[in-house]
């Protein structure tokens, strides 16, 4: 595991770069986020300073990968399968955009509970995507 990577701005390197560390966790099937050592703010997308308090004491934490749909929109390109793009509020307190696949009723609704999985495509880093939980 890549846990306990802490890097202040002076030790920024290709190995400790926030996006790189996120991808290393993703390769292990973990949705990681940063947590501010000073103000405890959950931080996403990854960066080198806390957008809340300005501290560069950011540590990595694994998310449980569970959250709820904050908002959602269905996009139906001509000649292709429709898909749902949503904003997910993770239980740890950060928000991210993702794709959500629906439950048995076929729809994604605001406030639906969702769980992460990782989609693999070619040489791209594993991509966190979500599915509506059957019951929670």
């Amino acid at each position, binding site marked *: 595991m890549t846990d306990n990577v802490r890097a202040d701005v002076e030790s920024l390197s290709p190995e400790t770069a926030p996006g790189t560390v996120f991808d290393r966790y993703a390769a292990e099937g973990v949705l990681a986020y940063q947590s501010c050592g000073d103000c405890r703010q959950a931080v996403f*997308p990854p960066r080198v300073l806390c957008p809340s308090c300005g501290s560069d004491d950011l540590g990595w934490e694994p998310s449980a990968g569970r959250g709820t749909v*904050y908002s959602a*929109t269905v996009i139906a390109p001509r000649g292709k399968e429709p898909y749902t793009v949503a904003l997910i509020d993770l239980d740890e307190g950060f928000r991210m*955009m*993702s*794709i959500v696949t629906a439950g048995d009723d076929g729809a994604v609704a605001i406030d639906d509970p969702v769980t992460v999985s990782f989609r693999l495509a070619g040489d791209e880093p594993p*991509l966190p995507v979500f599915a509506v939980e059957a019951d929670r």
Partner: protein
Amino acid sequence: MSAAERSLRGRAAIVGVAESSLGEVGPGISSLDLIGQATVRALADAGLSKSDVDGLFTHSAFFAQPVLTTAEYLGIRPRFADGTATGGSSFVGHLWHAAAAIEAGLCEVALIVYGSTQRSHGGGLVASGAALTRSWETPYAPRIPASAYALAAARHMREFGTTREQLAEVAVAARQWAKLNPAAFVQDDMTVDDVLSSRMVSSPLTVRDCCLVTDGGGAVIVTSAERARNLPRPPAYILGAGEATWHMNISQMPDLTTTAAQESGRRAYEIAGFGPQDIDVVELYDAFTINPILFLEDLGFCAKGEGGAFVSDGAIAPGGSLPVNTNGGGLSYCHPGMYGILLVIEAVRQLRGEAGDRQVARHSLALAHGNGGTLSSQVTAILGDESTL
């Protein structure tokens, strides 16, 4: 709010405005040609010469360094240049920056200008900047900008019971205003049902909930209030403005139902010494139908969550209780990628009383509100005639 910022109230005025050719200008005409056309027209309106211009304010997605490219084409060597790039709101921001620069003696005559041939270029939006920085949204293929505004609309519907019919009312009101504006790109009849039954772009927004994709441009000339009084057109005084930006990406917007217009509007009202109840005519950046609903709430024309009800039953259409987007807006008049310059131009024409069939009855005080990015940048300006000083 500093005393210095407060003291800018009414110190500068808009003395010339003009649109370039609008709609679909056809192949061979460049965005720079539209910038030149608008500049010539606006200077003529102001009774000034190009040699009077010593401040240049512009932004564009067509050039990497918009100020440099524009200055070269126009043959202007500005002693003050401002390329503030906050998307479509940039040009409302430029207004306030010009007022500050003029007051500080950094320039005397400011040209704010924009031109775009995005429609003739293939009908797609021209995006600013190269994607050299990783996006945490692009891998999920949202249709930006439409999906960002769709997410805001969906959340507003969930929290406040706003309906698709109410969103459609915004588009229908814009169309009714457009029918009074000979320069509007689309003028055919449109009903709420027409909007609802149109092709869905990104739910809950159909193509009729989305702005036009047109060519177009415009220019605005700003100078000191003293100099403005010796020029031919009635000055539109810049009474106050506020700029606010809280995020760039829609996934980072703190609350999808409250925009930074709440902050920009509060500051603009405070400087101007007026409130929403005083405003005669309102020009809001309507890239999507959810925008005017959010901005009417955040700018204090109704309470949070009541925007949908507020726009219903023709309330913002011609003859309604509040004239909003009197040129037909980005939804039915013109939306050349960035719309901000055009809402300033319409506000000035209304203040002067020269808006023809769409002229509102009371026209001393106008509010022009620009939006940029994905509900990201919000800039509010309050303009008034001589009686409001």
